[in-house]
C-alpha cells in the first residue's frame, strides 16, 4: 500500500477535478527536514460524484483535499479543473474560479464569526462577488437557509445562539450561496453527536441532489464515508492505498491496511465477539522520515523484503477497484491478524470476507 501511480485515474474529459502526482511538504522549523504530508497522490472526481477520502490522523487526507483547491498550492503536481490546470493559474485567474469551489470545515462553531449575524455570514460571499442587488441577495440567503433547515426568521441571531448541528447547517448554507460546482467537506460531522451527525449527512445528500454538487468528503469514520461516497480512496502516511467503489471496498478490501481499519471499527452488536488479537499493532510512523518502499510495511502483517525496496503502484484488481500493494488480499482472504478472529468469530455464509463489520 501506500503507493503512487495513476492507473486508477479516469479520462480527463470525464472528470470535473483531477489531481495528478500531488506533493505537499511542510518545512520543520529551520532544521531542513520536511514533513512529507502528501507524496505523489493522484485522484480524480467526476461531476456529481462523491469522493470519500479516508484514513487516520496524519495520513494527509485533509492536505490532499485542500491542495485540490489550491489551499495551499501543492509543491508539485497538477490539478485539472474542467481541463484547466489550476496550479499554473495566476492568483487573479485562480480567484475567478474560486466561487465554484467551496469548503466546509470540521468545527462548525469556530468556522463562523461569533460577532456576525447569520444573515451576514451567509450573504458575505454574495457581497464579495457583487452578485445581485441587496434585495436579490436577501431572497437568495433566505432560500438557502430554508433549504438547509434554518428558518429565515432567525437569521438575525448570532452563531452562539445555535447548536453545533445548526451551525454546521449554516456553514453548508454559506458554501451553497455562490452555487458552487464542488465542495470539499473536511470532517464535517466528526464534531457532532451521532443523532445530529445523521441529520447533517442526510442534509448533504439532499443538497447534493438539489444543487447538483460534486463532493470530496474527508473523514476518519469509515462507516460515515461508506454512507455518502460513490468512490472511496484510503490513504496512509501521504500515499494512496486503495481506491474502489464503497460497497466493493468494504466487502472485499484488497489492501491489508484497509482490512485492518475495517477490523478496528467497534460494531454495535454484542453478539459479534471482540477479538483482542485482531488489532493492528504499532502506530503511524513519522511523516518526517517515512519508511522506504511501501509506507505501511512497518505495521503490515504481510510485509516481505520486497516491500522495503520497491514502492507498490496502484493497479487494478477488479472493475474500478485499485490497490497499491505487492501482496494484496485475495478474494476471501483475510490478513494474518484477522484470520484468528474469522475462525473464532462469525458463523454463516462467507464469514469474514462478506462481514466487513468485523
Amino acid at each position, binding site marked *: 500500500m501506500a503507493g503512487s501511480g495513476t492507473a486508477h485515474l479516469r479520462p480527463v474529459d470525464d472528470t470535473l477535478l483531477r489531481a495528478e502526482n500531488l506533493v505537499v511538504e511542510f518545512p520543520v522549523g529551520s532544521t531542513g527536514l520536511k514533513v512529507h504530508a502528501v507524496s505523489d497522490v493522484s485522484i480524480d472526481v467526476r461531476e456529481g460524484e462523491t469522493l470519500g477520502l479516508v484514513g487516520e490522523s496524519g495520513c494527509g487526507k485533509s492536505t490532499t483535499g485542500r491542495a485540490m483547491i489550491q489551499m495551499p498550492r501543492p509543491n508539485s503536481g497538477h490539478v485539472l479543473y474542467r481541463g484547466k490546470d489550476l496550479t499554473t493559474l495566476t492568483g487573479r485567474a485562480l480567484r475567478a474560479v474560486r466561487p465554484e469551489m467551496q469548503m466546509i470545515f470540521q468545527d462548525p462553531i469556530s468556522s463562523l464569526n461569533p460577532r456576525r449575524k447569520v444573515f451576514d455570514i451567509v450573504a458575505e460571499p454574495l457581497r464579495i462577488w457583487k452578485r445581485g442587488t441587496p434585495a436579490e441577495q436577501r431572497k437568495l440567503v433566505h432560500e438557502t437557509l430554508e433549504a438547509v*433547515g434554518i428558518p429565515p426568521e432567525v437569521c438575525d441571531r448570532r452563531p452562539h445562539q445555535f447548536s453545533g448541528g445548526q451551525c454546521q447547517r449554516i456553514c453548508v448554507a454559506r458554501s451553497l450561496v455562490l452555487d458552487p460546482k464542488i465542495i470539499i467537506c473536511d470532517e464535517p460531522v466528526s464534531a457532532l453527536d451521532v443523532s445530529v*451527525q*445523521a441529520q447533517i*449527512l442526510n442534509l448533504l445528500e439532499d443538497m447534493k441532489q438539489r444543487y447538483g454538487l460534486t463532493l470530496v468528503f474527508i473523514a476518519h*469514520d469509515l462507516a460515515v464515508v461508506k454512507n455518502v461516497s460513490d468512490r472511496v480512496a484510503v490513504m496512509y502516511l501521504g500515499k494512496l492505498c486503495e481506491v474502489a467503489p464503497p460497497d466493493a471496498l468494504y466487502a472485499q478490501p484488497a489492501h491489508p491496511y484497509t482490512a485492518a481499519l475495517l*477490523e478496528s*471499527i*467497534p460494531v454495535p452488536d454484542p453478539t459479534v465477539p471482540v477479538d*483482542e488479537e485482531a488489532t493492528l499493532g504499532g502506530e503511524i510512523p513519522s511523516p518526517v522520515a517515512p519508511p522506504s518502499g511501501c509506507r505501511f510495511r512497518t505495521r503490515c502483517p504481510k510485509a516481505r523484503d520486497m516491500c522495503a525496496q520497491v514502492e507498490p503502484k496502484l493497479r487494478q484488481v477488479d472493475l474500478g477497484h485499485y490497490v497499491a500493494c505487492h501482496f494484496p488480499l485475495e478474494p476471501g482472504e483475510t490478513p494474518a491478524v484477522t484470520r484468528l478472529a474469522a475462525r473464532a468469530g462469525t458463523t454463516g455464509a462467507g464469514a469474514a470476507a462478506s462481514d466487513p463489520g468485523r
Partner: protein
Amino acid sequence: MSRKVITSSATGTPADPGTRLLRVVDLKTHFRTERGTVRAVDGVSLTLDRGRTLGVVGESGSGKTILSRSIMGLLPRKNVIREGHVFYEGNDIIGYRPEQMREVWGAEMAMIFQDPMTSLNPVMKIGRQITESLIYHLKMDKKEADETALSLLASVGIPEPAQRLQEYPHQLSGGMRQRVTIAIALACGPKLLFADEPTTALDVTVQAQILNLLQRQQRERHMAMILVTHDLGVVAGRSDEIAVMYGGKIVERAPTRVLFADMKMPYTEALLNSIPKLDHRSHTRLEAIPGRPPDLVNPPKGCNFAPRCKYVQPRCLEEEPPLAEVGSTGHYYRCWFPVGTPEGQEALARNRARAGAAAAAVTISPTRTEEL
C-alpha cells in the same frame, strides 16, 4: 479515620458479604447558573460489582460525564448541589471531606479522561507523574516506586519504558499518552476504574488497542469499570451492562445482550438507528433523530425525549414515565409506549397515520428537522 474504614475492606473481605462495590442511590447533581438550575444528573441509581463493566452511553449534554465525576466527588463545591447516596463498599462517601476523598482517589477508584493531552502535566516527566501516587498512597520509597512505574509502563504496552519514564508528555503520541494515563490510573490498584470517553480523541486502530488494553487490565486486576462513551459500538462488545442516559436520567438499563436484542426505549432504538452501518449499502438514508437534546434548565414536562420521539402520545407530554423493570430481568426502561410492545406498535401506527394526513395537507421541507 476514613482511611481505616476503607483499608479494612481493601484486604478483600468486605464487612458485609452482601455489600456491593458501588451502589448509587438517587444521585442528583445540579448546577446553579445565571440561567437557573441545570439538572445535569437527576436521580440516577445503579450498582456495580468487582470484575464487571458498566457502559454508560449518551450524547453530549446527557449528563454521563457529570455522573461519573459526581460519583467520584470530582466536582467543585461552589454552586453545585449534590444529593443522594454513593455507597462504596457499604460506606456512603457523598459526605466525605476532600481530605477523606484523597484516600479514595487513586487508591480505591481512579479515572481516565478523554483527552490525554490535557490530563497529563506537560511540565512533569512521565515517571514522576506515575510515582507520585505510589509514594503517597502505597508509601513506597523512590527506588521501589520507579521500579513499579517501569513495570506499569511495560504492562500497558509502551515500548522502551525505561526511556519513556524520563520523557515529557509532548514527546509521546496520543495513543501512548493515553497508555500513560492508564498506567497512572492503575498504579495503586484501584477497585473501580472510570474511563470517560477514553478513546474519543484517538484514531480507530489505536482505539481498538486501548480498549483491548483496558479490558485485559480489568480482567487481570478484577476491577469494576464504568466505561462512559457516546458510541454504542464501543460498549457493545466490552460491557456486561449498559445504562443509556438522556437529559440527566437513565432512560434504559439492561445487561448488554438483552439491551441490543430487546430494546424498549425509543431513544435507544433511535440512537442505534442513526449510526451509519458498514453492512448497509452506500447512500442508505439515515434515520436521523429530529430536534435536539432537552434544555436541562427547563426540561420538558412529561418524558424528556417526547419532543423528538416517533412513538410520542399525549400522555408522554404530561406524565413522566418511571424507570420500570421488565419482570425481574434487570432490564429497566422509562417509557409509556415501549418499543416492541403492542402499546408501542399502536402508538407508532397512530403517529404514522397522522403524519401521512399532515404531509398530504402541508408539504414540509424534508430537511427542516431541527426546531428552533
